[in-house]
């Protein structure tokens, strides 16, 4: 009994430590400016206000950044999932020389720190005339999301019995038809978790966005909000917190709906079959 209580206390204290910043973010975003730095601080605001949200939406470029982030993350997700699905199919189903080494080679980017990769990538993108575009970020994010996505989907793909595809072929489907009718529906949990992983990664990415994009037209939320609200002289705390809340909401909603797929996906490599 004592052990159980102790365990619960321990678990709840961890939850508290993790959840407190989120709570504080939410609370700060609805406090009026004059209440922000009061001592002692108020836990719940005495007066509730949504003025920071309103200001963010009407007076700043927040919606522009938000839109950029949506386009950027969605495009990256589509590109990564499409390539990883076909790539993992090839790695699992076809027999060719260097198949295994290829699968390991794609992981090579993870062995190098991003800082080392970012400069050559920047120079290449400049040469391609893509600097300061959302496309440049899509390419950059694809380079580091794709290897992981490929491995994740590979383990899912390996779990799909080859007989299913053979049966579809004998039943009269073309290879592409069998892929569409039989493989894809089986792969759906894997595709969902890969898509989630990629979306979250691109939504939260900061370093590449900072280096590769330097104009407001293409800036995503992460760097956009920083640029707008944090200067050397002042940090707009209330606006920053309101922006943070609005940045998190899409992810929290999506995650809540699909989290069972996500956890299943991360466990996929561990348990075979």
């Amino acid at each position, binding site marked *: 009994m004592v052990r159980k209580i102790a365990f619960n206390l321990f678990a709840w204290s961890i939850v508290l430590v993790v959840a407190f910043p989120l709570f504080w973010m939410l609370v700060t975003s609805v406090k009026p400016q004059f209440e922000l730095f009061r001592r002692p601080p108020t836990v719940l605001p005495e007066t509730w206000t949504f003025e920071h949200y309103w200001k963010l939406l009407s007076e700043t470029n927040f919606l522009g950044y938000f839109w950029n982030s949506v386009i950027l993350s969605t495009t990256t997700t589509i590109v990564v999932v499409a390539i990883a699905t076909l790539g993992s199919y090839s790695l699992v189903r076809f027999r060719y020389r260097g198949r295994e080494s290829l699968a390991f080679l794609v992981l090579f980017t993870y062995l190098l720190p991003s800082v080392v990769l970012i400069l050559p990538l920047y120079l290449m993108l400049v040469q391609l005339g893509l600097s300061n575009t959302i496309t440049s970020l899509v390419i950059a994010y694809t380079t580091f999301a794709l290897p992981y996505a490929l491995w994740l989907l590979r383990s899912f793909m390996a779990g799909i*019995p080859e007989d299913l595809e*053979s*049966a579809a*072929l*004998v*039943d*009269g*489907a073309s290879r592409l038809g069998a892929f569409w009718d039989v493989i894809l*529906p*089986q792969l759906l949990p894997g595709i969902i978790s890969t898509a989630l992983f990629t979306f979250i990664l691109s939504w939260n990415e900061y370093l590449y966005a900072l280096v590769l994009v330097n104009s407001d037209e293409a800036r995503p939320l992460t760097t956009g909000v920083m640029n707008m609200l944090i200067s050397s002289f002042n940090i707009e705390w209330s606006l920053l917190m309101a922006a943070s809340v609005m940045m998190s909401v899409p992810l929290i909603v999506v995650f809540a709906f699909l989290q069972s797929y996500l956890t299943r996906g991360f466990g996929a490599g561990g348990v075979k079959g």
Partner: protein
Amino acid sequence: MADVVLSNVNKKFGTFSAVENLNLDIQQGEFISLLGPSGCGKTTTLRMLAGLEFPTSGEIRIGDRVVNDVAPGDRDIAMVFQSYALYPHMSVGQNIAYPLKKRRVPKAERGEMVAKTAEMLQLTPLLNRKPKELSGGQQQRVALGRALVRDPKVFLFDEPLSNLDAKLRGYMRAELIELHQRLGRTMVYVTHDQLEAMTMSDRIAVMEGGKLQQFAPPQEVYRAPANRFVASFIGTPGMNIVDGELREENGRWLFEAEGLSVDAGHLGPDARPGPAAMGIRPEGLDIGAGPITGTVQLVEQTGHENITVVRLAGDLRMTGRTAPDQIWKTGAPVQFSIDATQAHFFAEGPTGKRLNREDPAVEAQAANHATLKEAIS
């Protein structure tokens, strides 16, 4: 008319040769089993027939077409897989309708054909279920339904019964035989279970190491195995095989092993003096009386007979069948004899050829055999 013909078919995976120089002529309407241990190339052969693997060399014909380069879906074949390979996200009805859908059969007609097939296999109440909600036997019937629904020219079966329990397996075996009789279609059946092959097939192709060992009716495979491998693979309990030496004496051949000497009579021109093997089925042993002495090692009572294992000098073991009331204690001395007319003699080596016997007594014995299916089941 030959319906399915494989001519000099070879299949290599890298340097590994899965099927070597295979020649098979399957007649229209015949039920053929490809029988052999794991890795003997039987499934590879079936997959080549299905178009799921491509032969490295050689020619495969179905009907009057060379199908080497024909896609599986265009070969007019249907296949039942060991794992059933039902599409998990489709209902039973959708599973059965899938091959029709892929062949652009109009929807109304499709529904009719599915309903008819489902009724024949007693699947009608299950049409809206998903495969994972079915028992193994039901899944197997759905897989069969998916193959039956479009009335293909050739049916291919890849160990379809091996995931069922023994009772259901016996039932499905009878169902398949009946189905074959009713449809009159060519069927190629892969199995490692000799009982299935013996009971269902018109002819059995015994394979080992990628090579065809014998292609003959079940009786012949049992009675006149082409070589030592076929002899030892077919039959339960297996044939007793004794390594020894052949010796010629005044035109007659004599087989000698430690503690044993058997008159082989007249052997064909392939016989050579020297190392050889003798094979004798358990029913060729008469335990209880005879000139040979051994000790009883084990008596297995199966109900309608006993399987008795006798140990001879030199640690040689021989298995015989005895009446259910003939029970010896383990370790008891026992006399027995070997019916030389039922013995086979093989050239040296694991796939040593069977040597022809040219004795009238042996031929008479072979003609006078009892029903074999009883003997092996």
